[in-house]
Structure formats: C-alpha cells, structure tokens
C-alpha cells in the first residue's frame, strides 16, 4: 500500500520529464551542429603575430603628418583578403613598427625608418604604433607622439628630457597609431620596442622580427616584395 502511494506520488512528481529531456537533447544537438557548421564554414586563418597567421587588427585613431586631428583607422579595411601576388604584385604591403617615443632605440631607429619609407613608400604602407611601455620615465602622451612624428619642439621625448625636434631623421609622413593604452601588446606579442612586423596585402603576417634575430629589416622587405614588371 505504502509502495503504491509512493509510486503514484513519484509519477506525479516526475510528470512529463521525458518531454523536457527530449527537447533538451534536440536543442543541444541542433545547436552543436550549427556552431560546428558555422565555425567550419567560415574557415578563418588563425589570428596572431606569427608568420602565416592573420595579423591582429589595428583599430583606433591615427595621426598623419601635419594633420590637426586623429582619425579613425582599421587595418582590416585596408587589407584585401582575396589578394593574389601574381595577379596584383603592386598591391601595397604593410610595415608595422611598434615604438615608444621615450625609448632610446626607437629614437635611433627614427632615421632608418625615414630611409626605409623613402625607399619603399610607394609599395609599402608604413604604420608606427605608438606605445607607452610600463618602464620608469616612459610616459608618452598624444602630444609627445605628434611632436616625435613631426619633429616639433617638445621637451618630453627619449625619457622625458629631450627635445623631440632633435630626433634623427626627417618628419615621418606616415600614420602614427595611438596605442598608449597598450591594447596591441598582447595580440601582437610585443616584447619590447622597436619591433617590426611586415604584413602582406591580404593581412597575413609575412615577417616577424622576433623570428629573425639579427636580420636587417630593409633586406627582408626587399626580398619579400613581389618583383614588378618581370
């Protein structure tokens, strides 16, 4: 008698559990299939700073030489995912330099950058990503970045006590990307400055300085660019 009451009570408590279990399995199975299908269907290359990976996006504000404002920039809007070297050898590559206006090495690198841009500027888009590393006496501001780029007078460069107008090289007539918040450090694997990554027109990393210790960046760039007119 007691067992029968308990069995009836269990039936009431367990009312229609099968419906929810079935619905749960159907929905879980369906969503698993959908997620797998979407991920496989949109076969994106892995995103990262290593060679062969899709370069992480640079999305933010840039400053151009002589401009009064910082303007929006999106690296992926500049790349062409369908680029083919044979059919379009003249498409522009990207030379992305990570730098810090308070870094002595970046200060010295300013002149070679000028020379590289004058040599390759018609085939390569130069971008300097301005960081402010967490190092004592490194505290760059937007004004300092502009002064460094334009070689204008501001007593804040190279550790905070040097006039930006005295830096080597000419004023840099390419985009300076504002990353004083260091948002690009992790995605791009930046360990120190200056640091260079060369990106193909389709956004794929072609050369990462960290993987080519001692190699001269100008030679690397020259050897990688498709030969035009051959």
């Amino acid at each position, binding site marked *: 008698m007691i067992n029968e009451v308990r069995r009836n009570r269990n039936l009431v408590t367990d009312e229609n559990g*099968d419906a929810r279990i079935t619905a749960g399995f*159907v*929905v879980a199975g369906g*969503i698993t299939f959908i997620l797998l299908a979407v991920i496989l269907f*949109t076969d994106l*290359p892995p995103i990262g700073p290593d060679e062969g990976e899709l370069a992480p996006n640079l999305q933010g504000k840039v400053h151009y030489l002589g401009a009064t404002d910082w303007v929006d920039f999106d690296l992926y*809007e500049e*790349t*062409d995912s*369908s680029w083919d070297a044979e059919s379009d050898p003249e498409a522009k590559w990207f030379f992305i330099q990570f730098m810090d206006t308070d870094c002595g090495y970046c200060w010295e690198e300013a002149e070679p950058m000028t020379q590289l841009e004058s040599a390759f500027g018609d085939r390569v888009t130069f971008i300097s990503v301005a960081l402010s590393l967490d190092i004592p006496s490194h505290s760059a501001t937007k004004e300092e970045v502009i002064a460094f780029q334009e070689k204008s007078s501001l007593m804040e460069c190279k550790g905070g006590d040097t006039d930006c107008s005295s830096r080597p090289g000419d004023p840099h007539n390419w985009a300076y990307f504002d990353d004083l918040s260091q948002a690009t450090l992790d995605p791009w694997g930046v360990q120190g400055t200056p640091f260079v990554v060369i990106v193909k027109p389709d956004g794929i990393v072609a050369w990462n300085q960290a993987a080519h210790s001692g190699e001269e960046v100008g030679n690397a760039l020259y050897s990688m660019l498709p030969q035009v007119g051959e």
Partner: protein
Amino acid sequence: MVMSTSVVLLLSSLTVLFGAMSRMESTRPLFSTLGMSDLVSAPASRRMLVGTLASISGGMLAAVWVWVIQRQSIIGSTTLCDSTSGCAQALSNQTMNTLPFSNLDFGLFFILMFSVLGFLALSIHLEPTWSKAGGFLSWGRTIGGISTLIALWMTITHLLMVDDSPAICPICIVLLAANIVTMMQFNLLLASHSDGSWNSN
C-alpha cells in the same frame, strides 16, 4: 545579393511568415499539406506551438547566416553579400555588431536566444498538458521580449550608427521579424493557457 543569401532569406522569411499565420483558421488546411493532418482539427494552441517552432527555426536560420557573414567580415570582406549591398554595409563593422557591454556577436547571441526559446516551445509541444506549461510560456515571452529589444537595437544601429548608415540588411530585418513573431506567439499562447482556451478549438 548573393544567391545563397537570397535562398536563405526566402526560406527564413517563409518560415517566419508561416509561424505568424499559424493561428489563423485559414491555415488549417496548410497543416494537412505539410503532413501534419492531426493538427488540422487540433486546438488553435497546438497549431500556434508549431507556428512558434517555425518562427524560431526561421529566426535561427537568419541568425546563423548573420553570424557567418559577421565571422567572414572579420577579415574585411564577405562572400555572402555584395560589397555595396546593405547587408555588407550593416554587418561589416565588427564593433557596431556586438551586444552592448560585451563582445558577443549579434548573430551568436540570437542563435543562443533562439535555442533557449526552441527548448521552451518544443517542451510544451511535446507535452502540452504539462501542469507547468504556463511557467515555460511566461519565460518564453520574457526571453522573446529581451531578444526583440536587442534585435530592435541592432536595427537602429544599422539605420543610424554604422559607417554607411542607413544600411538596410534584409536578413537582419527577417531576424527582427522572427523575434517579434516569436514573442507575440508566446504571449498569445500564455493568454490562451491562462483564460482556459488552451484545449479548445
């Protein structure tokens, strides 16, 4: 518009439309045509449950397509929309096509929402006489309402805030319609369950 996207648009639109019309008496013969003869004489609530599942399926299909386009657009272009079309203009901006205060893509968000709604609707469809069906219907209405608000926000974003606004993305409009239809269906089903007409024709 690219062929595959046009087909998806047509399929999802028809499915959502079927969901919206399932309550009407004139659709009874349609259930027989679709191989669901037992629903022809079933209570309106049972047909509406199937209609709700249909609008959820249509919304899910549209959401999947939106997410695929969004994922392709990560690299700057998509093969599923012409570069000058409304859908490319609306969905190519990654930062504008995520849920506010998070980085969840709109497409993925709606897939998850329709999954939950699908579970609720399917549970009741499989066991319409369950004593707690009203609770599930109430949850469906609430979740459908939240999802509809987000879909409205997405539409406003496309009309006013993306770079090439106003950008009219047809598949996103179907997604919004699927959300509205699903929410309304849950609302009507809840009303039917509450006023005692759940089992009447």
